[in-house]
């Protein structure tokens, strides 16, 4: 069961490529599903990829007073997301480079912070508004997220993702315990909030007063916009993949070998698609919450996760 450096590197590369290409497709798929439920035809699933391709060649515009932060932020967003993808076990546990659940949170935070800073760097009211709202929602989501992760790592006695996955593979009875379900529910809510989906944020809104995430990236154009969009979609897919693997660990490759890797890829893709479908379906029937109702949702998630931790101790 020893991973050579080469195999680990290649698995990481594969994950990067897979997620980078797959994530816009997942967004396309989710849009397609929504459209279908609404009775539309909807754009093709590859539409996000097409948009990114188009944007890559368009003109880049920088706001008058912005600094280098504005230029660097999209790169940082994509880079940190790619690092996450590279070091966490997504297709295979072989890609684990000290992948720690808590470290994941902080790495995700880099992306959020850089986008928020770039928004403020534009010097517009929209940017500030979006940054303020996004950071507030993020701050409120953080406790629920970390406590949920805490609950998930308690049974394994480790916050190392690989360890958690491997140990839960050997102890399938962990998977259906109530604390785990509670924690996962909280985690899912946080994913929805962090990736700017309904009911926290409406990714398709054009109304300035209700948008959170869109407001931050209003100034980006051309390849920068493409990078931001790519980064955001990769974040979503990464979180879904992490969630999927933690929820149903089976399928992930725990030993070297191309067959295992292919199984791992397919199973992860299936998990992500399944979750994406779920989210898209739920979103259609949902209205966006008022911004100041969001804390209630986050508090609910926090309570769920605390309950998860407490019940894990009670059950034992």
């Amino acid at each position, binding site marked *: 069961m020893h991973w050579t450096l080469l195999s680990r590197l290649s698995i990481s590369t594969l994950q990067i490529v897979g997620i980078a290409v797959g994530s816009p497709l997942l967004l396309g798929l989710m849009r397609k599903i929504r459209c279908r439920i609404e009775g539309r035809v909807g754009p093709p699933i590859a539409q996000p990829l097409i948009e990114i391709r188009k944007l890559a060649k368009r003109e880049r515009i920088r706001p*008058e007073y*912005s*600094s280098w932060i504005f230029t660097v932020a999209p790169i940082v967003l994509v880079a940190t997301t790619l690092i996450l993808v590279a070091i966490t076990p997504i297709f295979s546990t072989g890609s684990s480079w*000290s992948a720690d659940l808590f470290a994941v949170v902080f790495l995700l935070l880099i992306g959020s912070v850089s986008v928020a*800073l770039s928004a403020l760097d534009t*010097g517009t009211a929209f940017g500030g508004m979006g*940054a303020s709202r996004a950071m507030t929602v993020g701050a409120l989501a953080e406790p629920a997220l970390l406590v949920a992760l805490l609950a998930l790592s308690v049974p394994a006695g480790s916050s190392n993702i690989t360890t958690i996955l491997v140990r839960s593979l050997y102890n399938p009875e962990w998977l259906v315990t109530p604390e785990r379900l509670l924690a996962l529910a909280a985690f899912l809510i946080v994913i929805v909030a962090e990736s700017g989906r309904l009911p926290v944020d409406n990714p398709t809104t054009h109304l300035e007063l209700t948008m959170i995430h869109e407001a931050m990236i209003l100034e980006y154009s051309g390849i920068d916009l493409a990078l931001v969009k790519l980064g955001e979609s990769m974040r979503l897919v990464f979180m879904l993949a992490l969630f999927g693997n933690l929820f149903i660990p089976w399928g992930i490759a725990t030993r070297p070998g191309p067959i295992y890797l292919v199984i791992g890829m397919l199973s992860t893709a299936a998990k992500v698609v399944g979750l994406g479908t779920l989210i898209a379906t739920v979103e259609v029937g949902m209205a966006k919450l008022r911004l*100041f109702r969001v804390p209630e949702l986050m508090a609910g998630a926090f309570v769920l996760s605390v309950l998860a931790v407490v019940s894990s*101790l009670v059950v034992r």
Partner: protein
Amino acid sequence: MKINLLALTSILGMAGAIAGAITTQKLRKWLSSLFGIATCVSGLVAAIEVLHSNHPMIFQSNKILVLSGYSLQLDRFGALFVASGAVVGIASMIFRLGYSGHGLASRTASFVLPLFVMTLLLVPAATNVTTFLFLWEIMAIASLLLVLVDHRKRPEVSNAGQWYGVMTHLGAASILIGFVLLAIYAKSQSFASMEATAHHLPSWVRTSSFFLLLIGFGSKAGLVPLHVWLPKAHPEAPGPVSALMSAAMVNLGLYGVVRVGLGILGGGPTWWWLTVMALGALSAMFGSLHSATSTDLKRLLAYSTTDNIGLMFLGVGAAGLFQSTGHQSLALIALVAALLHMAFHALFKGSLFLSASSLQQATGSRDLDSLGGLLSKMPVTGTIFLIGSLSIAALPPLCGFVSEWLLLQSMLHGLPSSNPSLAIAMPVGVGVLALTGGLTALTFVKAVGIGILGQARSKPANDAHEVRPTMWVGAGLLSAMCFLFGVAPFLVIPSVINSSKELIGTNVANPLVGGWQVGLLGNQGAIEPGLLAFLIVVFVAIIGGLRKLIQAPSVRRAEAWGCGRETQTSRMEYTATSFGEPVVRVFEDVLSPSHNLDASQLSESRYYVEAAHFHTSLDDAFERRLYRQAAAGLRWWGSNARRLPNGSIHRYLMFGMVALVVVLVALG
């Protein structure tokens, strides 16, 4: 002959003070700063020497301090605080060479500043009550005087000074009572004999002295609800002083609590530590909420100090809790995490305060809403500020990440035990840590985004220039260390473990992995900040390169999109107030903002408003509800007491007569 470095530190500090007091205006700034640096270097060397050996460093003299004796002994625990204070001291003193604040150039300030630095370094070495309190109070009075140096410019300074003075005196009184209580039972005022007798003390003595000392040290550390002075005094102090106070002095409050709680008293019952954790959690939440809503840059930093101190106390409380429930190695981890956070907080808060002072000096304001656009005008200072902000937001690969991660780990591993108090405390602790982490990210996105990004919000900010090199060298030193220790934490972690073992017990096995990794043995979770840093650099380079490849970097600079309106001025930018507004809304019950709307109607119709004035303010709830009430109560008492001596000699004589009758009746 081997020079005693503790004595040398004392002498250098005093020499600096004297040099600062008696030389000319030009010389004294240099002399006192250079002596200050020398003091710090000497203290740093001493600390490093102690950290790398098993022997404490001792300096004693009975010729100093009447009827008590002066006694210093630096052990490895204290050495950590000395080292961290010395680093901040060196940076601040270098910074001061370029700082042109008028007040800090005065004779008094030049006299007091080296003394302040010296006491910062010597307090952790004091080993008897008198020496400790002596140094502690000199530190207090020196810092008070330094806070006051700009009293001519702003009336708030003297107000801040009064708050600080009273709170620090309250704390000192509490410390005095607590220590004396222990000293009486030990029949000696030395810490060592207190430690030796502490286990045989009646529990009420242990408990009351612990809590008295907690109050005393907590007030210095800025622990809620004893923090009220901190967000007033730290901002009003001149730059280097606020850095020293916020990055080094508050740590000594932590030092005291740990020294007493885990060292002298050798741990205590669970509920002590639950209280410490609760106070830490309260401070962290309260501090982070207020810093998220502050618009004054230095006030924001000060509240964030309260926040971080809260996190450290959370860690210390966890350490005590683990120790009291028999989890020695977990206690070690938690303590290491807390101390690591202390050391790192010193670095990033020092760099933040110093660079914030540079911004203030360049623009003449510390109101976030009149800064802005400074990253391009002051690239070096701006970058230093940015690095500090990212560190404090615990972003990898900077140092704040390592310590916060370790703190989370210690709490995670405390959970599997079946102890119910742990089961409640740890998830709540993690929740608090997470919420404050999120709010800190928000706060510093605000500080950077509103403060140094975007369009300049005022004319002075628009005309700002980079500060003198000495200033950014001082601040940059610290932010470079933020980066260095963030990437290679193994440079400091062994020392922190050594120094924690001094208290937890030297025979406790080291549960942490070494090398480039930070983490727990046995695959229980580890991070590799060095690898992360490497990856970030590589990936940023790759993606940046790709972007260049795909598209020539022809960028059009254009006016930001303003919905097509005619002009777009800096007044239309999002302000710091509005940035924090969602937080205020969400936590309205905690923050209880006060709003005041004055609208005057047109005389023709009351449906048309002629002018409207809206004022909103966010006072410290503890200040308003606790301290102002207490002060009002005292004043009420004082003004009523004034009626007693009404000037009539008859009344005065009657007091005497009553007393005489009482004496005669009682004793006759």
